[in-house]
């Protein structure tokens, strides 16, 4: 079946340093769309990034990600982490036109001073 894997449950980084959150997926669908959602404490999840084009970099709010179908990955990166980036981050996949959005387990990002 379709699945999304986020290997790190918690990532801790010092403010100003780069950060990378890993995401890989499995699907049999050729047409897919990928998302990163962010959930701040006591708030609802919201879309951070979206991509459906292979090898095209997508950027928003200083974060960027590139969908690589060859390695089934959509890692999230930022060159300089900010304290306000501390949140729970979910990688998610929409396979074809199934109507489903399949989430990974989530990675908590803690940015410390």
């Amino acid at each position, binding site marked *: 079946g379709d699945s999304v894997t986020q290997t790190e449950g918690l990532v801790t980084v010092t403010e100003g340093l780069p950060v990378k959150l890993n995401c890989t997926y499995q699907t049999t669908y050729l047409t897919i769309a990928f998302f990163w959602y962010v959930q701040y404490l006591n708030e609802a999840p919201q879309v951070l990034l979206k991509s459906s084009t292979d090898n095209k970099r997508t950027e928003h709010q200083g974060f960027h990600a590139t969908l690589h179908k060859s390695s089934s990955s959509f890692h999230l990166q930022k060159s300089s982490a900010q304290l306000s980036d501390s949140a729970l981050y979910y990688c998610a996949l*929409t396979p074809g036109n199934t109507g489903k959005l399949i*989430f990974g*387990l*989530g990675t908590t990002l803690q940015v410390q001073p």
Partner: protein
Amino acid sequence: GGIITQTPKFLIGQEGQKLTLKCQQNFNHDTMYWYRQDSGKGLRLIYYSITENDLQKGDLSEGYDASREKKSSFSLTVTSAQKNEMAVFLCASSMGAGTGQLYFGEGSKLTVL
């Protein structure tokens, strides 16, 4: 803009009780979703409805019923609450199936005594 309203925000029930959560959206979106959020387990899809009068099971549908009363509302029923169960249920909507861009409500927190 629009908003998704979930009621109640907090729900306390007894073991074996049938409990219902309600969700309303004013985006005029076609597709609505119910997810369960547990710490360390990500967001798991319970039920979704692509259009009014449609109902689709997610991966976690056992133990739940759902009803799409009209385009703007989607209810979820826990058919028999499990003792010591604690979870957050998130309702979401999207323009159409396959877009992947979901707008979430703030959640309903269930505690079973």
